[in-house]
Each structure stands twice: as structure tokens, then as C-alpha cells.
């Protein structure tokens, strides 16, 4: 399927906070209560629409355990967006956010959009981190913030799509250099220079994908 842009995302955060379940809910619209451990990195993809433009999200879901950090770090580079996830029912996953953020900032490109996510908000009775604390952390570090539930799907669409909106806005503002793929953005066949040329009368350079 043809798209205007491809955005690469990375999902990070402590082990067991629900990273893989968020991805599964977003790509497959289902919840798997027992989800096996993510080892290394796994992938997911979905098409979304922002301002009438088709955008393909290519999502890299990483393992949370410390041992894998040296492997997963290499995936920060070349990501346009990051979902930094903690579990509102486990305070220590919130306490580790600073380390995750430092790691992300150090190994990614400076314009990467980071969305802070407090997951498992369906488990209100077991809540250990107040919503206001998440908001305060996000404000202090310049992140977007949302509480989600991979189980009920609450805010899951929004989390992925709002991040894409923010990246899209940054492209419009010229913050992202979209010709540098290391920024995690790829121009799709719809917008690539060759297809633009072909629509202006040079069929020889057509990409074959394009519109119907």
C-alpha cells in the first residue's frame, strides 16, 4: 500500500509494563493477557491517516531487561518517535523513567518526539503513581503525556496517532530533515520526487506504486 511518509517508532520502558501489549492492541486491536517475554526486538506496522495523508508507522518493540540494553540502544538511532512506557501500578517503573530518558536522548536524534505513557490505567484500585505525577514529569522534560490501557484499548490509538501528529507538525515546521533517513522518516512513493515528476509529465520516472 502506498503512503506519504513512513515514521519509525521505538517503544521503551521497564520490563512488564505492557509495551508489547500496547503494540498488539494498536496493530491487531486485541489484548493478550499472558504475553511471552520480548527478547531483543520485535516489529509491528500499521497505516494511519494524518491530515488526509497516509502514514505508515513502523514500530520497534524492545526488550525491557537491563541485560539487553546494549542491544536495544542501537535501535534508538533512526527513530522519529518514542513511546516511553511505565506501569501506574508499579512505582519503580516510574522511578526508572529518568534513566530511560537519558538513554533515549543520548542515543537518538535530537528532534525525536517522545510520548510518556502511564499504562494499565484500568487497574485503578492498584494504582501507585498518580496521574498528576506523570503529567508533572512530562511537563518538566518536554514530553507529551497520556495514560492508557492496553487491555481496554483506552487511549491506545491516541498515543500512537498523537505522536505521529507531532512528528508531522515538526516536518511541516522544517524541524526534521526528511531527506536524512537517520531521522526515522522516509518519504513514501506518494511524495517521492520521482512520482512528483511523473505526475508533471515524465512517466519514465514513475515509481509504479502511486495512486490509482
Amino acid at each position, binding site marked *: 500500500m502506498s503512503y506519504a511518509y513512513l515514521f519509525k517508532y521505538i517503544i521503551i520502558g521497564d520490563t512488564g509494563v505492557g509495551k508489547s501489549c500496547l503494540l498488539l492492541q494498536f496493530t491487531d486491536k486485541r489484548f493478550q493477557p499472558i504475553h*511471552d*517475554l520480548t*527478547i*531483543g*526486538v520485535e516489529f509491528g506496522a500499521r497505516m494511519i491517516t494524518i491530515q488526509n495523508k497516509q502514514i505508515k508507522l513502523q514500530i520497534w518493540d524492545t526488550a525491557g531487561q537491563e*541485560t539487553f540494553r546494549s*542491544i536495544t540502544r*542501537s535501535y534508538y538511532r533512526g527513530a522519529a518517535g518514542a513511546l516511553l512506557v511505565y506501569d501506574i501500578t508499579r512505582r519503580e517503573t516510574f522511578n526508572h523513567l529518568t534513566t530511560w530518558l537519558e538513554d533515549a536522548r543520548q542515543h537518538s536524534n535530537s528532534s525525536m518526539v517522545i510520548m510518556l505513557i502511564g499504562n494499565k490505567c484500568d487497574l485503578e484500585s492498584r494504582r501507585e503513581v498518580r496521574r498528576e505525577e506523570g503529567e508533572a514529569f512530562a511537563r518538566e522534560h518536554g514530553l507529551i503525556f497520556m495514560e492508557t490501557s492496553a487491555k481496554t484499548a483506552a487511549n491506545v490509538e491516541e498515543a500512537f496517532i498523537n505522536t505521529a501528529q507531532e512528528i508531522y507538525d515538526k516536518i511541516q515546521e522544517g524541524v526534521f530533515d526528511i531527506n536524512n533517513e537517520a531521522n526515522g522518516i522516509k518519504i513514501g512513493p506518494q511524495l517521492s520526487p520521482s512520482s512528483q515528476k511523473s505526475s508533471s509529465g515524465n512517466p519514465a520516472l514513475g515509481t509504479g506504486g502511486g495512486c490509482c
Partner: protein
Amino acid sequence: MNNKHKFGNNKSSILIKEIPSSESVQNDNESPSKQSEEEEVESKASYHHDSEKPKNGDPKLAKLKKLLYEDEITDLSLLRTITWSGISDEVRPLAWKLLLGYLPPVRSKRPIVSENKKTEYQNLVAQYYNNRQDNDEMYRQIHIDIPRMQPLITIFQQPIVQDMFKRILYIWSIRHPASGYVQGMNDLVTPFFVTYLSEFVPRHSFADVESFDVSTLTDEALATIEADSYWSFNKLLDSIQDNYTFAQPGIQRLVNLLSRVVSRVDKKLHEHLENNSVQYIQFAFRWMNNLLIREIPLRCIIRLWDTYLSEGTLSSTY
């Protein structure tokens, strides 16, 4: 849960076809043509077999039984050449223990070693597991991970089994601080656990074992399975510990080795991956970290491990 396996049967049959399995040799109602096929398979396996064939059976199994249960001292190198091409379910538990070097080749010494090892393990449990701190990080991690393990195989959802895994992993980790517990190690216990459990499941099929209710076993039997699994896991990890130490150098080496192998045996594929900027570490990391356990059905993994353990070492020497 209905799905016992992540993949369909066709995948496993392909695997078994490529590596001749001893199981297939046991059917009494075989057609003559099949019989000769099997003889061919046997002659390919590099071991001598006597001209006198047991009447209703599998000469390979008979040979294994003699090696394991009759010889005073089991010839380990002969054992390896036979087990390399697959081990029958009924002799696999003992064969694995010998191949791993967990039990000695001298037959008369096995019961005492086995008993001592069991006591030693139980002492470790008392010393470390029962005395752990409430806020022990490693324990918390294992405790979160075990209930998430292999959700499609029902036996791993049983509380007794999960507690056994927690103890095995915790004790190993506390005694190996250079790596500690690394996610994926839990999977490496599963072939041992299922194999040693099968000793206590009468006339089983593999599906029986994967869904067996362990609460029907005696405490004595459970303790034996647990201790045997622990020591076997311990032996296995001895040879591959640098897969799990800082930055996981063993895995990096294995992934590089895979890349070199593919570049030789399937240059086109190698170039295709390269042209699309796909790095081997992106897809093969889990293969190595979990020794393929997450990629193919467990009963095929167990067959694969017959060969792994017969090779003697899993470490990459490159």
C-alpha cells in the same frame, strides 16, 4: 487454551525428515519398503550394529539400552555417535544426563551421585531461596517473568511448575552473578523439565506430557525432576555463559557466525538482506538467546537437543 503449539505440524515434520528420528523406527506394522528405508537411515548414522537384530525392535534402541543399563561403564564417545541422530523417548532422560556429564559413566555410581545432587540442590534452596530478601531485585524479575512464559503450553501455567522454575532460575542466578538471570533462560529450562517429567508420566505421548497435571505426582518425584532440571540447566549454561554476560558477547559472535554461514550457503539471501538494510542481529538475536526455543515446537526442540548435547558443547569457538 486449545492451541498447544505455536506452529502447525508441517513444520515439525520437515525438521524430523531432515534429521532421521529414532521414534519412526518403532512401528511394527511397517511395509517392507519402509523397513529398508529405515535400514538405510541407520546405516547412515555412524555406528556399528551387530548382525543379530532383536526380533521385535529397534537395534538402535537396543544398543542404547545396553550402553546405558547393562555396560558397567558407558562408552561416552560411542553414546554420542548413536544419540546424535536422535534418542528414543524412553531412554532420553538418562542419555541426556550422561551426555551433559551430570551423571557419571560408571553405572554403579549413578544412584548415589543422583541422590547427593538432589540433597545438594535442596540445601541450596534452603540456603538461598528460602532466605531471600523480600525486595530482592532478581527474584522480583523472575517472579514477573515466569507467569508470562510459553502461554500456549498449559503445563507451564500450573502453579507448582512455576514455583519449580522460580527456584531453579533464582538459585542459578544467585550463584552466577557475572550474568545473573537473563530473560530467555527460563525457556532453556523447559526441554529438561519436560524430558525429566516424562519419566514419571506412564506411556505418554508428547501432548500428554505438555498438559500433564503435576499435582498428581509425589513430592519425591517432583523433587527429583526439579533437581535434575537444575543440574542439567547448570551444565548447559556452563558452556554458554558468555551469551548472558555484559553486552552478550557470545550472542554477538553467534550472530556474526550465522551471517558468515549464510553469505556462503545462500549468497543471494545474504545480499537481499544487506540491500534492504536488515541486520542479522534484528531477527537472529532471539534465535541465539533462547536457542531457538521460541521459534519451533517444543517436541522438535527436544529432538534438536539430542544433537546439541551429543555434540558436547554449544559455545561458539570463533
